[in-house]
């Protein structure tokens, strides 16, 4: 008798994923992350519910963590949007970090050369300059990809490294070096970002960009062309869409948004008002990579990205209490973020597949 046992579970490929399914998948991935991290907390002798309580009460307390939560969250929103635009055209922008550094350079160059300008003029000028610097840097990768077919992941990653050292050259012993070792000179007071409702006004700028992008991608003719290219470059070619043109365009838009974050980051948090030490600005630069994850989790929907980025901001800020308040081992806060990012990545599986049970006969 030939008898081959059937497997119990089966993987099925999904043709189309709806928005509702995507929301369910992200919520379940978060639940799993919280469960996994609870294990680590218990291993260290903490009560998970208590720890989570501490994390969120700290992160959202207006007197304690709220302003930093929003500031970091919206910083991540900038890089998420900078990722979403090129990704809509099928391009992986891994260069938000470098574009952000270039934006920093652009913004600070204006502030240092025109310190006495009226804030109403200086601040928009700084943001614009940062955006232009970022856009140029993105366009460079876009040109390499669009005209010379250089892989954009490799190009943007390498450009990140160059940008890091450019900032280093300017700050550590460079023309922008401050009195303190290896940081920049402080920003002039006129360059500081006005605070509205516990956060810098640039947070609202990020929300505004998210809304505009949503409309742009969904309803504009150019946005449509971007999406066609993102779905099928062959189809795009067949209906006369110029891939090089769109490639350079989306990389420039992405770069501009990441560049604008250069102002948001350093001029929006009173703890900075300058470019900090290299390891500190590198740590901030590393936050831009959350943009990739959140962009993918949100299926490139820029409005859906808003709550996600604020949530990550709250974990980022709130989890520090694990170490400071609950006296848990150092690094547990970073571990939490790591667990969340891993479950996000793992649950991407469900964007493509469905698991179905098969009856055993």
């Amino acid at each position, binding site marked *: 008798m030939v008898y081959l046992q059937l497997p119990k579970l089966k993987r099925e490929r999904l043709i*189309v994923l709806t928005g509702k399914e995507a929301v369910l998948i992200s919520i379940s991935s978060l639940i799993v992350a919280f469960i996994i991290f609870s294990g680590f907390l218990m291993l260290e002798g903490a009560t998970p519910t208590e720890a989570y309580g501490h994390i969120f009460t700290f992160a959202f307390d207006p007197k304690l963590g709220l302003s930093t939560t929003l500031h970091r969250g919206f910083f991540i929103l900038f890089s998420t949007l900078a990722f979403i635009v090129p990704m809509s055209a099928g391009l992986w922008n891994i260069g938000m970090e470098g574009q952000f550094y270039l934006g920093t350079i652009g913004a600070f160059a204006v502030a240092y050369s025109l310190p006495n300008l009226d804030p109403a003029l200086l601040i928009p000028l700084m943001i614009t300059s940062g955006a232009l610097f970022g856009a140029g840097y993105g366009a460079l990768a876009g040109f390499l990809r669009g005209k010379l077919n250089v892989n954009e992941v490799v190009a943007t990653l390498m450009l990140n490294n160059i940008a890091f050292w450019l900032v280093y050259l300017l700050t550590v012993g460079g023309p922008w070096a401050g009195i303190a070792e290896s940081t920049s000179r402080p920003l002039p007071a006129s360059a500081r970002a006005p605070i509205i409702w516990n956060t810098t006004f640039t947070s609202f700028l990020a929300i505004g960009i998210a809304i505009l992008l949503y409309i742009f991608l969904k*309803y504009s*003719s150019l946005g449509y062309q971007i999406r*066609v290219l993102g779905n099928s470059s*062959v189809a795009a070619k067949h209906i*006369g869409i110029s891939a090089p043109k769109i490639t350079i365009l989306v990389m420039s838009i992405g770069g501009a948004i990441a560049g604008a974050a250069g102002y948001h980051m350093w001029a929006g948090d009173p703890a900075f008002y300058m470019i900090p030490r290299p390891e500190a600005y590198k740590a901030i630069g590393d936050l831009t990579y959350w943009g990739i994850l959140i962009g993918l989790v949100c299926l490139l929907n820029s409005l859906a990205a808003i709550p996600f980025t604020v949530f990550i901001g709250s974990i980022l800020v709130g989890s520090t209490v694990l170490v400071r308040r609950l006296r848990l081992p150092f690094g547990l806060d970073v571990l939490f973020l790591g667990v969340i990012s891993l479950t996000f990545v793992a649950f991407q599986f469900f964007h493509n597949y469905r698991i179905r049970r098969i009856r055993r006969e």
Partner: protein
Amino acid sequence: MKADAPILEVRGITKRFPGGVVALDHVDLEIRPGEIHAVLGENGAGKTTLMNILFGVLQPDEGEIYINGRRVRFRSPLDAMNMGIGMVHQIRKLIPAHTVLENIILGHPKTESIINLKKAREEVKALCEKYGFNIDLDARVWQLSAGEQQVVEILRALYRGAKILILDEPTTVLTPSEVESFLNSMKAMTKEEIATIPFVTHKLPEVFAVCDRITVLRRGKVVKRLGTKEATMKALAEYMVGREVLFKLEKPKVEIGEEILRVENLSALSDKGVLALKGVSFSIREGEIFGIAGIAGNGQQELAEVIAGLRKPLGGRIIFQGRDITNASVLERMKMGIGYIPPERLGVGAIGNFSLVENILMSIYFDHEFSSKGFLSYKKIREYAKKIISEFEVVAPSIDTKAAHLSGGNLQRLILGRVIPRTSKLLIANSPTVGLDIAATEAVRNRILKCKERGMGVLLISEDLDEVLELSDSIAPIYEGRFVRILSAVEAKKEVVGAMMAGALSGGG
């Protein structure tokens, strides 16, 4: 007919897919040793699902499979292969850079870490002689024609000791001359008690000529089981479609007008950088269907792409309505009234992840009638899309359905609906009916004739010789990048054009 016990028996196979689609509904099938048993059905009839179940790719929800009277369950194709089932896919599963022999012995249980090529060669050679396959075992697979690649797949299955051979649309890739030798090989196999099960949608007559019995599937059910002797072509087509089928199309009488397109000495490279199109000249006039008949890979794809603006020509000129458009962009050509129907549907002609509206938008996104200040006027676009969907009889739950959910025939209707109304002068239809079932093929052909009626010029490219002969006013068989000749519909005889396609009459013939 042989009276032996069945070698393969399928009882009550049912397969449901998510979303409540019943692909197979209690299907029974009985195959005797050495029998040629054709399974007929349109696209969507469940042929592919049945094939995949027989070969262990899918597992049935209900029903049993017996081989030589023993119940079997296939967990994977490997199980099926070990039970003597071989499959010849329509999409080749071969390694192009390897030789024929290497492909045949690949994955064979006898092939160990040290390959005994000499012994394998003798065994494969013996197989070739036995069944009358004529193939160079040292040729690289990429050098072979589609028909020869199919032979490699058959040999691979036979070398593994297959007693039951499943063939997916075996005759579609063959040239008329190849068909005959293929059918002879099939007959030779039956003498060795090897049962073959060709699954067929198109090209009924060829299979009809050799098979013993026929099972007809429609919408997942067996609608008819009959011996070849009792069947007629027309009746079979009716069982497949479920209604009477008119095989004859009415060619409209259209006055052939002025010249629309003139192509002069056009040449182009293929994607591999090989000279694929070697100096082709012709012209198309208003109301004329110019048919290019050829086996895939003879330069017709490159020709279509050059005229549509997708590929840069190496030399020559394209004159459209008296204007040199050799260097015009795709978009400029679209705006001039040139439309292109590509051979691949999903991912090229249509985007699966896009709704029907967004797909139709592909041909009008640049038109100021449907946008203002850079923003799309979705209200107008949706109305237009609704009109197109009903006019072109695209069957879909709503205009917001994703194109990925459409069947092949509906998808092609959608693509025609997107392209044809925006095309005023010249339609390039590249393999417009490939892979479509009878009903959809009929609809597509009628659309093309309607374009002719509207006074458009049509460049029709097809591997299906009957289609080209039936629709075209002028016929150009293409072989190795050159037109063998340009014939008028009256003087084009099927045998002659078929021989020209196969290269028999090229070069002065």
